[in-house]
C-alpha cells in the first residue's frame, strides 16, 4: 500500500518537475513558432498597411494574395514566381538523394580500416566548417580562373568523358546529362555532406559487429552484407538524414530571399506571407513524396537482392 502510494507520488513529482524543464521550450514554441505560424497564415489572406495612428492595419482580401502571387508579381530577377518554385524544387529533389548516397558512401569509407585513416577523417569532416553558406559564397571566385575552366572542360557539357558515355554506352541522354550535372556540382554536394556523414558514421558504428560475423560465417559476400545488414539497420537513420538534408537544401534556396524581398523591399507583406505559406506546403509535400519514394526503394532493394 505504502509502496504503491510512493510510486504514484514519485511519478507525479517527476511529471511536475519535468514541466519546469519543458517550460521555456513550450513558451518559446507558443511565442516564436505557433503564433508566427498562425500570423503568417492570417497575413497571407490580408493586405497590410500602416494606419494613421502608426499601428498596423489589416484588410481581409481572401485569396487575392495567392492569385497575384501566381499571376502578376515577379521575383527579383523578373521571372514569374512559378518558375522560381519549379526550378528550386527540381534542384532540391535532384540533390537530396545524391547527398544521401554520397554521405553514406563517405561514412562507409571512414568506417573501414586503412592506413592514414586519421588524416582522411580530419579532411572528411571539414565540410562541416567549409560548408557554411558564408564560407562557400566567399570562396567562390568572382573572376573565372584557370582551374575552374579546366574542370569545366573536363566535366562540362561537351567534355570528353560525357561524350564517351553518350557514344559508347546505352545510357539515355538524360541520365548522362544528370551525371554530368552532378559532376559539375560535386563541390556543392560534398560541402553539404558534413553533418550527414557524421550521422551515418555514428549509425554504422552502432551496428552490432556480431551480425557481420554471422553473415561472414554463413558465406555472405560483401555486396550481400551491405544490402542485407547495413542498409536495413540504417533505414531509420537514412530517413533522418534525408529529412535533414532536405531542410538544409531548402534553407539555402533562393525562395527565402524572395520572401524577404516581397515583405520588406516591396512592402507587400501579404504576398510575402502567401509565398511563405506556399513555401511551407511545398516543403512538406516534397518531404512526403521523398519519404514515400525512399521507403519504396529501400523495401524493393531488400526484397529483390537475394
Amino acid at each position: 500500500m505504502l509502496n504503491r502510494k510512493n510510486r504514484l507520488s514519485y511519478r507525479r513529482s517527476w511529471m511536475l518537475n519535468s514541466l519546469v524543464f519543458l517550460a521555456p521550450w513550450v513558451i518559446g514554441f507558443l511565442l516564436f513558432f505557433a503564433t508566427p505560424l498562425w500570423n503568417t497564415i492570417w497575413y497571407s489572406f490580408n493586405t497590410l498597411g500602416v494606419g494613421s495612428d502608426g499601428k498596423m492595419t489589416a484588410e481581409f482580401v481572401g485569396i487575392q494574395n495567392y492569385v497575384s502571387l501566381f499571376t502578376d508579381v515577379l521575383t527579383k530577377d523578373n521571372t514569374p514566381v512559378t518558375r522560381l518554385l519549379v526550378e528550386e524544387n527540381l534542384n532540391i529533389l535532384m540533390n537530396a538523394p545524391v547527398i544521401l548516397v554520397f554521405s553514406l558512401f563517405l561514412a562507409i569509407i571512414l568506417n573501414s580500416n586503412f592506413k592514414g585513416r586519421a588524416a582522411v577523417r580530419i579532411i572528411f569532416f571539414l565540410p562541416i566548417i567549409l560548408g557554411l553558406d558564408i564560407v562557400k559564397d566567399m570562396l567562390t571566385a568572382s573572376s573565372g580562373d584557370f582551374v575552374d575552366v579546366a574542370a569545366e572542360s573536363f566535366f562540362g557539357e561537351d567534355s570528353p568523358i560525357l561524350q564517351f558515355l553518350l557514344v559508347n554506352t546505352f545510357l539515355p541522354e538524360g541520365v548522362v546529362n544528370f551525371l554530368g550535372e552532378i559532376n559539375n556540382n560535386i563541390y556543392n554536394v560534398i560541402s553539404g555532406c558534413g553533418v550527414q556523414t557524421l550521422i551515418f558514421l555514428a549509425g554504422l558504428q552502432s551496428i552490432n559487429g556480431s551480425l557481420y560475423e554471422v553473415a561472414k560465417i554463413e558465406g555472405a559476400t560483401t555486396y550481400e552484407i551491405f544490402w542485407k545488414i547495413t542498409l536495413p539497420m540504417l533505414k531509420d537513420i537514412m530517413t533522418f538524414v534525408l529529412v535533414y538534408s532536405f531542410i538544409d537544401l531548402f534553407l539555402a534556396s533562393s525562395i527565402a530571399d524572395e520572401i524577404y524581398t516581397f515583405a520588406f523591399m516591396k512592402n507587400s507583406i501579404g504576398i510575402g506571407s502567401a509565398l511563405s505559406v506556399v513555401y511551407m506546403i511545398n516543403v512538406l509535400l516534397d518531404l512526403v513524396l521523398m519519404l514515400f519514394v525512399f521507403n519504396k526503394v529501400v523495401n524493393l532493394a531488400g526484397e529483390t537482392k537475394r
Partner: protein
Amino acid sequence: MKLRDNYLTPSERLLKSSVGVVKGVLFGTLLVGLCFTILYPILKALPTVFNDLNDLGNPNVVWVPETLSVNSFKLAFRIAFGNGLSILQTLLYSIAIAFIQMMMSAMVGYVLGRNNSKIFSILTGLVIVAIMVPPQALLISQYLSLKNFDAFGLIPLLNGGETIDLVGNPLVLYILAFAGFGLRQNVFVFIFRQSFRGFPKELEEAALIDGCGFYRTYFQIAFPNAVPSMVTVLTLSFVWNYGDTFYTTYFDPTGPYLANTLSSMFQWANRDLIADFATALYGFSGNANYVLDAVKFAAVLIFLLPLLLLYFFMQKKLVENFERSGIVG
C-alpha cells in the same frame, strides 16, 4: 599473408596479390580525389592570397606566387576587421549562444527521451514539425512580433500599454536560444532526446533508491553521461552560430557579427571601392575583380582561422564524441 594462402599455387598467389595492389591503388586514388575536392577551394585560395596584388590575373602565376606578400591580409584586416575586436565579440557571442542552446536542448531532450506517455510523444512530434518548417517561412511574422513584442499581452501590462521593440537588441538572440528556438535548436533537442533514450534505466532507479530527486538525478547522473552528445551539439552550434547570417541580419542588424560584416562588405558591387583602397595603400593597378577575390579569400581565411584551429586541436576528441553521441538512438 593469410594461412589459407599457403594452399594456393604460385600463379594463383601472384594473381591474388596483384588484385590486392590494384584494389589498393584504386582506393587510394579515390581517397586522394575526394580529399582534393574537399580541400580544393582552400588550396585554390592560398596562392591567390599570398600573391603580390599586382601579380593577380597574371597567366604566368597560377599555383606558386612569384613574390610572396601578405598585402591581401593587411587590406582585408583594414576593410573588414578593424581593430580585431569584432572577432573576439563574435567568438564570445557564438560560445555563449552554443552553451545556452546546449543546456536548454539537453533539458528538453531529457524530459522527452525519458518518458513515453502520450503527451511527451505529441511534444516530440511538435519538435519534429519545428525542425521541418524552415525559419524563413516564419520570418515576416516573427520580425513583426519582435518589432512590437508583447509576450501574450504581458509586456503592455507592465510597460504602461506600450510594446517593446526587440529588433536590433542583441538580447533577442539570447532570448530565442533560451526559449529553444535559436538556430536549428530543435535538431539539437532531437539529438539529446535520442541520446537520453538510450540511457540505462537502472542508473536512474539506483539514483532514486539512493535518494536523489529529479534535479539531482539529472544534473549528477544523466547530464554528465551525455558528454558525447554535449560535445557534438556544442561544436555544431558554435560553428553554425559563428557562420550564421540569417538570425543576426534580421533580428540584430547593427551587431558586430563577423559573418554579416563579411557578406555585406565583399559584394560584387563593392569591388571598385576595394580596388581604390588597394591602389591607395599598395599601388595596385589592374582589374578590380582580381583584387576583390584576393581580399575576399584573405578575409574568409582569417574568419575561418578560429574554427580551423579549434577543429585541428580538438579533432580527435571531437570525432570520437561525434561517433559515440546518441545521434542514432
